[in-house]
């Protein structure tokens, strides 16, 4: 399948500080690519370079085969962008905004259809300054679709939205993919990436530290599947001594790693035979969020120095 986005050796430097440091990845046409990273890791800088809004220091970037900075005007006819915290003219309604964008692009969108796609029909004639944060983001999404884009860049489109609004944006993203469009999604929400993305890239301190499908990333960077018992620490000691397994204790729980699913029966028999009282167990696998936290730490870490766009 052809690549919609190709990035090689992309670097953005502010003085001696690297906001993005020689990164590379590609996004296949018709797929959803989730670009993850903590605040200040270089997500927005990278996204803006791909959109042609910011110039890179070095590297080769192609979106739909075009150089976003040098061929931005041509590229912008073929992509749709929702920036973080979408802003528009305060006194203009969604219908007027769609007709305006339609006139600029020379397309003839039906405002009712576009607003229906983002579930904003009931606010069709409300002025922008009266819309809620979620409704503003939905209008941004509708406007980004007025030119029937081949690639959609969504920069944290669901940040700050309530669960219902978030799910409605997710549904739009799924529809975009079904229609064969490429979606480049920047997000803070690991659950969002896991649910929607075909491919994920994790950026940290300006470098890509993990990439692949969510399953591949979990497999490569996550811990093994585990049995988690509600039991005293003595159970962990017993299992380590008798079965030569990795067993850890956390807050009244004992976690035992499985090297293969067949280990489960052997471990359960040993637990039963130990005579140590236990109340129950569950099986647990790492999620993308577990892997993310392990790789980059909590979301608010890893920021660049203040004042530097990232």
């Amino acid at each position, binding site marked *: 399948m052809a690549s919609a986005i190709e990035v090689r050796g992309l670097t953005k430097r*502010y003085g001696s500080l690297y906001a993005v440091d020689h990164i590379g990845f590609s996004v296949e046409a018709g797929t959803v690519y989730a670009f993850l990273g903590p605040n200040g890791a270089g997500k927005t800088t990278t996204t803006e370079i791909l959109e042609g809004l910011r110039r890179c220091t070095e590297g080769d970037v192609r979106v739909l085969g075009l150089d976003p900075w040098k061929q931005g005007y041509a590229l912008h006819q073929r*992509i749709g962008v929702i920036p973080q915290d979408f802003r528009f003219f305060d006194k203009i309604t969604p219908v007027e905004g769609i007709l*305006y964008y339609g006139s*600029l692009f020379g397309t003839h969108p039906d405002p009712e259809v576009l607003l229906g796609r983002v579930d904003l029909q009931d606010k069709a004639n409300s002025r922008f300054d009266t819309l809620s944060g979620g409704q503003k983001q939905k209008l941004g999404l509708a406007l980004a679709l007025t030119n029937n884009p081949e690639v959609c860049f969504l920069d944290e489109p669901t940040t700050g939205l309530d669960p219902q609004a978030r799910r409605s944006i997710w549904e739009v993203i799924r529809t975009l993919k079904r229609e064969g469009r490429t979606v480049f999604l920047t997000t803070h929400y690991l659950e969002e990436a896991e649910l929607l993305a075909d491919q994920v890239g994790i950026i940290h301190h300006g470098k890509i530290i993990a990439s692949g499908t969510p399953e591949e990333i979990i497999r490569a960077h996550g811990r093994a599947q585990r049995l988690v018992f509600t039991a005293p620490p003595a159970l962990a000691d017993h299992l380590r001594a008798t079965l030569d397994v990795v067993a850890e204790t956390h807050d009244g729980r004992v976690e035992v790693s499985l090297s293969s699913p067949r280990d489960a029966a052997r471990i359960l028999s040993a637990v039963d035979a130990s005579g140590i009282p236990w109340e129950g167990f569950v099986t647990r696998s790492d999620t993308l969020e577990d892997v993310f936290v392990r790789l980059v730490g909590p979301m608010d870490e890893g920021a660049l120095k203040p004042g530097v766009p990232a």
Partner: protein
Amino acid sequence: MKASRIGADLKIVVRSYLRNPVALFFSLIFPIILIALFGLIFAGGSGGAVSLAVENLDHNSPASVAYLAALNNTSLVQVTIVDYSVPSFSAQLGDNGYSVGLIIPAGFQADLTNRTPVNLTLFTNPENAAAAGQAEGAVTGVASYFNLRAVCEGGSCAPVIQVPPPKNIGSQIYTYIDYLIPGLIGFSILTSPMFSMVDIASSYRKEGIFRELSLTPLTKSEWLLSRISWYVLLTFVTAGIMIGAGAGLFGAHVQITLGLIPFLVVGPFLFVSLGMLAGTVAKTPESAALIGNIITFPMMFLSGTFFAVSLFPPGLQLVAHVLPLYYVIDGMDQVMLFSNTTRALTDVGVVAILAVIIFALAVRFFQWRDVA
């Protein structure tokens, strides 16, 4: 460049504007307030004696001395004897800062004695309507007193001392309100786009609206032309309101000719571009407002908006001549008051050249995208 995109953007601008009551107020009501305010201030009376420059060509004859003493006694004027050449009397009054002047002709004493009608020639400056009215009242009042006392004694009450309508300093024939209208139209051409564009340039950048527009096919030139189109429309409406209010409230009479149109087009063209350029230079909305004020306020007061530049000290007159608004207002004075097409063409030429240069600079330096 596509007219359809300029039209689409213009539609958004007009809608935004019409839905903003504060902006509407300032655009439509503010001009009327300005005309009313300045008209009332400068058409009304004022306290204190007016300095009246008098050229006494009757060489201190008893009758002329008595007439001037009577004028002084009214407390409305303070007589100052001057010795100017008669042909350039009006010009010299202006040069020496007098708003009113009077020539007592040679033979005043003899004509009074012989009961031969004699004309006093009064000069006033319409831009100082209060002083003009005060001096005219004093000169005609004392003339009437002399006529009654000196002339009716012989049984004939035909006035001997006559005061024809005053001549205007600089040989012009208009009132202050007539001068005020082109000045205030110029004021509006300057302030409305300058304050607005400086604010838009910085706030749209801060809010990311320029970035969003940069992702559409709309170009910087098209966007700026759409704004210029809007302010040209607004200027036509504002000029109409000001001319109407001036005529309705104060009986102003200015010529409304096709020659006015170029100024109502190139004026906003220039100041929308200048506002955009100033806003582009500023890094924050606060510094944008400061830069806007630094450019706008001196121009507002030194370009002949409220008072003729000829009344300024020579140094300030030089400053005025480097301010673009001076040429807008002077040009409108020429077409609305003096029918001086040649000078108006020069003025509109200067403004048009400046407008094109500043438009090009604004488009060049104003960035949709972040080049850092």
